[in-house]
């Protein structure tokens, strides 16, 4: 890269009068419109991924009908938390990838693993340039009978597991999964488990809302549900007198 100095504001052609003090690039270091947790579990026939449909603008829950789960190709689904515009950019990358693969028309198809690694390379590369895509991605798919469920973070960390989550889901949903997940969950049991975790997140995560989507990926294909509301109960004893153990708090 000719003439590109590190840590000098990117995107500027030549020093402009009003930017005589170039400093470290900061505009890539905070998100604006963000989605919260995404949850994923493997079950008997495939993979289930769930997320609510909220996008927050700081502390305001600004947009309440955002689809944070998107199918990519026949075998793969990506859910994102974090900056929504960066997620949209990632979808462009993946769309191009899938299109090129489709155009080969040679009997070979990208597997969820291929897409997972491709995204990891992108995320890691951008992180190295101090210009990350501010997302944690949950990626799930089924190909040739093999179930795949993985995560890529904004710094390029990548892993796979039987159950995954992003953001608050790691703290609130994973413990539930650890207790209650097993290999042979049926579709109904899997959805129940996810709804339980989503409900807890709605109670405890201030950026979560009570409108969720659950996606089911099997060998046969991908099905993303229409958004629906979770049943909530505000009658728990623990919710009455919440400050009984900590006088003065609210």
């Amino acid at each position, binding site marked *: 890269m000719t003439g590109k100095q590190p840590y000098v504001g990117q995107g500027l052609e030549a020093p402009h009068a009003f930017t005589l003090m170039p400093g470290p690039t900061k505009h890539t270091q905070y998100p604006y419109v963000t989605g919260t947790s995404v949850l994923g579990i493997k079950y008997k026939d495939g993979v289930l991924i769930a997320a609510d449909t909220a996008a927050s603008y700081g502390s305001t829950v600004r947009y309440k009908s955002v689809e944070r789960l998107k199918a990519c190709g026949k075998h793969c689904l990506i859910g994102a938390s974090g900056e929504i515009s960066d997620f949209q950019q990632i979808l462009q990358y993946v769309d191009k990838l899938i299109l090129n693969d489709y155009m*080969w028309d*040679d*009997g*070979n*198809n*990208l*597997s969820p*693993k*291929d897409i997972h*690694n*491709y995204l990891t*390379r992108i995320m890691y590369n951008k992180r190295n340039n101090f210009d990350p895509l501010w997302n944690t991605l949950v990626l799930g798919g089924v190909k040739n009978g093999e179930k795949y469920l993985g995560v890529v973070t904004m710094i390029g960390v990548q892993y796979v597991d039987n159950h995954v989550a992003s953001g608050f889901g790691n703290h609130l949903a994973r413990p539930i999964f650890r207790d209650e997940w097993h290999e042979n969950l049926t579709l109904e049991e899997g959805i129940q488990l996810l709804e339980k975790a989503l409900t807890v997140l709605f109670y405890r995560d201030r950026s979560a809302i009570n409108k969720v989507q659950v996606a089911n990926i099997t060998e046969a294909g991908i099905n993303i549900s229409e958004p629906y509301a979770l049943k909530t109960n505000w009658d728990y004893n623990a919710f009455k007198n919440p400050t009984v153990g900590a006088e003065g708090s609210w």
Partner: protein
Amino acid sequence: MFRNQYDTDVTTWSPAGRLHQVEYAMEAVKQGSAAIGLRSKTHVVLATVNKASSELLSHQKKLFKIDNHIGIAMAGLTADGRVLSRYMRSECINHNFVYESPLPVGRLVVQVADKAQVCTQRSWKRPYGVGLLVAGTDETGPHLYQNCPSGNYFEYQAFAIGSRSQAAKTYLERKYETFMGCTKDELIRHALYAVKESLQEEELTSSNCGLALVGIDEKFEILDPKKLQAYIDSMEDATKEEAAPTEEQPPHVAAGALLTRESSGGVEVPADGDGPSPMET
């Protein structure tokens, strides 16, 4: 072949609609020592004739591993072949880095073909003078391809290129219908018989031929001389099926036309004996 007025530049068409430089490049392939490939439902075998011009000389390396699931045999200017094999290795490893999965052999073959085509359309370049037989496996099974200096590529059940390849092709034409069901050992023996045809008078030993093999769940491997000699020795033990000739001998058509499955892309130049060539020797 005598000189033509229109053969100085690769970018000059002849009035007959031919690019002579490209044809001359394909002639270089025909002059190189033979390379043979054949495939079954589970494996692809590559075999080469290793001719050293003197006893003091060790023979040239013509079999190259490109990746765990892809390998090539070359005929012609092996120096050009090494450059292409470096490119192919690079593409495979790049793909593996990004996707952590093997590059499908068919896609690599197209990339090589497109690279070769560039050299047929730039006045400051010359076509690669090497023909490749590319053996590899992907999701859809084992495959054998040929890459030409013209930028064409073809998929084959079995094929041979290089000098005296016609003898090997004749053998392959007789036997190719049985290849799909062959075991690994049977396939290797067929390859060695084909090499034997190309060697004609000479005795087949592990020092004048080379063999490599790739299969589903089996990495590309160039057989070491000991293993190779063992297979050669086992040829004498196996029943000689050549004694029983098949009635349905196909009319003598250039083997390329008989055995091709698909052809596409590249320069429209008659390959390997096809088409009007009044100056064939």
